[in-house]
């Protein structure tokens, strides 16, 4: 059972002492390790250090002022609001999709699985554009929305929809392989013993998938908070109203308010670091500890 449930999450183990035939000569080991570390230092560590270095370049007082001025706070609030709507919606979808796909046989299943991954193949800019085509002034429902004084594009609902689109597959693609590997035996036993559907889900399925679900939520949350291209198309960039944190960073940067831009960006970088820590914690979890 443990090996079956473990298959969906990426899992790393330390290499055991390798047999001699698979061991590289010392000079190759040193060279390759050095090349890899220098490459990663240039492309990963340096940008990260730059964010925090620039953010604090005018001192702590300036930093705190930058992240607590009204426009920054309103951007933080909007980002949190978006996440509070998008993540639960995508969790509900991910669980429903995984339940249908993993626990039942039906025709068109592989097409459905492919369609769920579709948003990953779409450019963020296009993800925003398609909502403009549906809800924008020139779009399908534009005239009706204007007549009824409903704003979706250049308003919060558009930001929520575009974010939901780009983060759509995260939870589902984590849960589908996990629940497929777990099969239906435990749920069938529960039903046979008289549990109803919700009891089966809450007491049998959910405890089994909780780590996979958590993993999907972390990734979905990080992308939802940081989405830039799609949100930038539908937001309209109204300061204090439709600016999310990444858009606020862009505006400050383009106004040459570089230090303030990096101060807000550092909050998003902290989010990224927290995401990596939680993600590795799930991946490094001892095998039996689900």
């Amino acid at each position, binding site marked *: 059972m443990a090996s079956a449930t473990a298959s969906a999450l990426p899992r790393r183990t330390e290499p055991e002492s390798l047999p001699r035939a698979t061991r590289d000569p010392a000079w190759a080991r040193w060279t390759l390790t050095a090349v890899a570390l220098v490459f990663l230092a240039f492309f*990963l560590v340096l940008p990260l250090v730059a964010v925090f270095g620039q953010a604090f370049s005018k001192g702590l007082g300036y930093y705190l002022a930058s992240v607590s001025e009204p426009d920054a706070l309103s951007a933080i609030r909007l980002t949190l609001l978006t996440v509070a709507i998008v993540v639960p919606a995508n969790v509900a979808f991910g669980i429903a999709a995984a339940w249908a796909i993993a626990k039942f046989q039906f025709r068109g299943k592989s097409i459905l699985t492919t369609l769920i991954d579709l948003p990953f193949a779409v450019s963020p800019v296009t993800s925003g554009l398609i909502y403009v085509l549906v809800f924008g002034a020139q779009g399908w429902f534009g005239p009706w929305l204007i007549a009824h004084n409903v704003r979706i594009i250049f308003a919060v609902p558009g930001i929520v929809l575009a974010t939901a689109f780009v983060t759509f597959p995260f939870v589902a693609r984590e849960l589908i392989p996990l629940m497929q590997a777990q099969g239906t035996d435990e749920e069938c036993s529960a039903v046979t013993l008289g549990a109803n559907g919700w009891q089966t889900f809450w007491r049998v399925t959910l405890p089994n998938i909780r780590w996979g679900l958590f993993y999907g939520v972390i990734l979905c949350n990080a992308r939802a908070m940081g989405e830039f291209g799609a949100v930038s198309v539908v937001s309209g960039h109204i300061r204090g109203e439709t600016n999310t944190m990444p858009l606020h960073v862009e505006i400050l940067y383009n106004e040459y308010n570089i230090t303030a831009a990096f101060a807000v960006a550092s909050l998003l970088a902290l989010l990224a670091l927290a995401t990596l820590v939680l993600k590795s914690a799930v991946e490094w979890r001892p095998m039996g500890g689900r």
Partner: protein
Amino acid sequence: MTAARNSRSILPGFGLSLGFTLAYLGLIVLVPLSAAFLRAAGMSVHDFVAAVASPRVMAAYRLSFGASLAAGFVNMVFGLIVAWVLVRYSFPGKRIVDALVDLPFALPTAVAGIALTSLYSTNGWVGRWLAPLGLRVAFTWTGVFVALTFIGLPFVVRTVQPVLQDLEPEVEEAASTLGANRLQAVTRILLPELMPSLLTGFALAFARALGEYGSVVFISGNMPMKTEIVPLLIITKLEQYDYNGATAIAVVMLVASFILLLLINLLQKWSRRYQPI
């Protein structure tokens, strides 16, 4: 999609879960996506071609495809080395390095964009050392390439790493017993085995780079005909209220990514060809 329910299943909730899945998928993904194709289908052939093949758009395709290909190749080479080092060797701090590889997935693209720009501009930490050598990165083709390399970095590492981990040491032992030296074992035995995952990682990184916007717009400088990527061109057209022009270009890019998605699926089937079921 007809749903022929498996009569043997005693589990409840099939109708509810599939119904909700299809409704949500339709509302969030399929209906909006079809809007792009329907809008493009409503254009005359002449207008469509004029919108997707003007010199400025062609220059943007060349930049986006060229820089994405170059970044994909660099990531294929260095991604293989990073995956190799992470799987085969041990060194202090390896877990942290391993976790850090996913940074481009977790770091918001706008943050990556301004960080790379500040590093590589002529007075930045890296740029100031390159400037005397006559090498300008920010606001040039190279800048676009650097941003796309950053954004594609985890893909090759994360596709190659699990394959490398699952390789049986016996294969290399056999090669060694049969008289192959280490270089021969790596190039003739290991690399062919890793090729499908390398190509999958490359294709994933390439597909991501094609559509990437946030990390590129800051460092590219956005000069028409020179450093303007395709996604930026879509936004520019939208800001000029040229909805048809924007949609036409978006549809070309959508078709390109769907073809890539298909190729990636085929590659993944190919890479699983020897695996027991």
